């Protein structure tokens, strides 16, 4: 992420740091969330749900492998 001086930018960065450190969230989901943030699409419910579906599925696959 680029350095962002606004409070919203700082909150978003802090949010990403938190989700990355959160053991209950699969890293595959985190990666997708980060991409959504970068594309400015983190406020779209359907995209968040897609990220959750795909991320959880991929995580299950990776864990099984």
């Amino acid at each position, binding site marked *: 992420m680029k350095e962002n001086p*606004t*409070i*919203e930018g*700082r*909150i*978003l960065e*802090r*949010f990403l*740091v*938190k*989700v990355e450190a*959160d053991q*209950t*969230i*699969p890293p595959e*989901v985190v990666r997708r*969330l980060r991409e959504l943030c970068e594309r400015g699409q*983190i*406020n*779209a*419910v359907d995209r*968040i*749900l897609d990220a*959750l*579906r795909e*991320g*959880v*599925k991929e*995580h*299950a696959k990776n864990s099984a492998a």
Partner: protein
Amino acid sequence: MPRIQRLDLQGFRGIRQSVPLLFEAKSILLFGENGTGKSSFVDALEKLLTGRVSTLDGRAHSLSSDRHGPHIRNGEHPPLIAITFNDADGTVFDLQSDPANLPTALQEYLQGARENLYILRRRQILEFIDSQPRQRYDLLRPFLPLSGIEAIEEALRQARDRTDTEVRNAAQETSRLTQDLRRLLGSDTLSEEPTEEQVIRAVSRELATVGQAQITAIPRLSESIARLSDALSPFGDLSRQSQLANAIQALEELVEMIPRVQAMSLITTVETLRRREAREARIFYEAVLEQGVRWIGEESRNTCPLCEQPIDTQRVVGRTQERLIAMREILNLRQEGRRALESARQAVRSAIEATQRAEARARVLAEEETGRSIETIAAARSILDALGEVLRGDLATLDIEAVRRHSAQVSPDAPLVEALTRCQNEFRARLSSLPSPQAAQKLLSLRDRLERVSQIWPEVCRARASAKEALERARAARAIYEDAQAARKEEVQSLFDELSKDINDIYVHLHPDESHGGVRLEVREAVQGSVNLRADFYERQSEDPRAYYSDAHLDTLGLAIFLALRRWYRKQRPDFDLMVLDDVLTSVDTAHSVRLSELLLSEFRDYQVLLTTHDRIWFEHLRDIQARCGVTQAFVNKVIHKWTIDEGPDLREPEDERQAISRLIADGSAEEIAVMAGRLLEHILQEMRYTLRLSVQAKPGEQYEIGELWPSFYAAIRKDYPTLYKQARKTLDALDVRWTVRNWIGAHWNTWARNVSRSTAIAFATAVCNLFDRVFCSACRRFIAPSATPLGQLACRCGGRIYPAPGKEAVHPKSREDLVRDTRGALRDARLDTARYFEWKRAEAGRER
């Protein structure tokens, strides 16, 4: 950067006739005694820039700036308020202007001015401190541009809710399939969540009853089914029997499922919810209740905020809180209703699937065997479709009567269930009439059930996997939402920490060496959009400052908060530099006011300030502080000499009046000359009344006229200040005779005075101008005043005009640096070390003697 060049107003608040307040793109220090119209200028600025006046709008329900803003004698004329900016075009913005037509820089300036974060009135100092935590957050909202983050949080919350719904749906689907499985293999052999081993064991047990080999894995089930078919082959063609058995089983499933779609729990919940909603909403809404309790509590009201009738506060607040609890119960009911609705939809979906299976199995029967079964199943499907359609809407729009009507058609004693049971019995009768040995029937039934098990088990596995995945998603979605909330709270807290530091720095600057401070704004953990204010007091840490701080300390804390916030707002809008402080400095004691003023004039020197005071001593102090802080040139100091309801505030400058007299002497009438000279004389005498502490008979409103002031002034100069009297004797004696000229032809209409000559008026005016030149210093723009030492000396502030004490040399006023040095530090940085000061004063007095 745009700045206000002048503010013009007419017919607004205490100003009837057009009065300009000339900023000249500088700051203004405005002095006027109470009730002389200072706040009219502040109100006008606020009205024009924000559209409201906080002393009227929102202060009481019966007050508004639209109704009470116009001057009471203005009739139907709309008020005029206009700002002229200092841009090259001298752009004017008034109440009728459309900001969209202004230059971009001014549009941005006006945009910054929309949020009232730059005007502080005396009565508003404690507003932030006394606010409720939620209101405090609202006051800080303009500093927290979080609409983007709030949209993200809302999207994450919706994602969390939707994944929770998916978990519930997946659980229901798994449960439905499991129930089917348990019905086929016997609920006594399978647990609520049967494992593969349990299913294998149950199937093996069934196979053993017909002498078939056990299975070791579910995929081997197809082999067992094939073996059962082989075992049936010796009995000949049993396809009719098999089809009838399948149809009976499908109808059994359907008959069992249909009563489950009865939405009785949904109907009961929604009816309770609607009754509660109707009862509460008929009278009040939640927001009104909350607001009402807040008003009553905060304003210590003993009247109703709506009808203003007397109320028993305790009872009203108690009842309102009961009703708020009722509101929360409604919220719980809504949640319960949503769950019941989802569950009813799921049951209808399952029942529709069962009709599809039953119809498919009935259709493969021979025509003479189907009887009325196809029609009956179609009727069931149609009823279920209709019920599904009714349940499609959301909870608020759900047609509960339609739900009830359709539900009645699927009750256990409804004709539909009866008809389905009849079809089932007919199929059973036909099956028993067909030749089929007992052994064959047993094999056939087992084969059909195992075929169904072989279909359902993969569905159960899929549903379980799907439920597990949904749970994973929901867990992640919940954690993500909580992380987003925590990130916002932490970041806002760190912002508040920075702001708290600014507030604290200002507060500690005002109260050095005092054992309190530690001001801190805290985001409340439990409540979103809510802020606590905490401060330290001696050994007590992080307390509500109202608990221990004195009123004066709370006032300075309020001022520190305002100044810190103003500075923060400037960071967001660097091109908007206006700050209005309406009579706020005199709310704290002198030592703190001096520090506050110095802070204001040094740290906020790059703001355009409108600073008003009703205290003349403070006005003089502030002028000194301007000089100390090196901002004299950045300020225009204005005095409101008097106010009348028709003429409004009198803001004339003495130098302007002096120049006007010179012009009138050249070409004005006797009357015009006398009027202007009279005004200047009145101005001089008003100033000298304060500086020389003239003894005047007290008068309501302290609006003294020349006749009341002159004798005292003349006597004081003659007696106490002989140097000035000696130098200005001719002028003073002339005026002692001629001051009445102003009354003869300037102030009153006297027939006998019509013949007063122009030369008499000129002589009067010349004497007034000579007196002005003697008592006013054009270098420091101050009137002369008695010096502290030596007694009997008159001097202006810069020493440019001095009338020494009799028999003494002129003593020039000391510079600030000299004063600090001479007093050995007693006077330093506006802080007075009283012990040192009095030691120095005693030494000075000894030298004088």
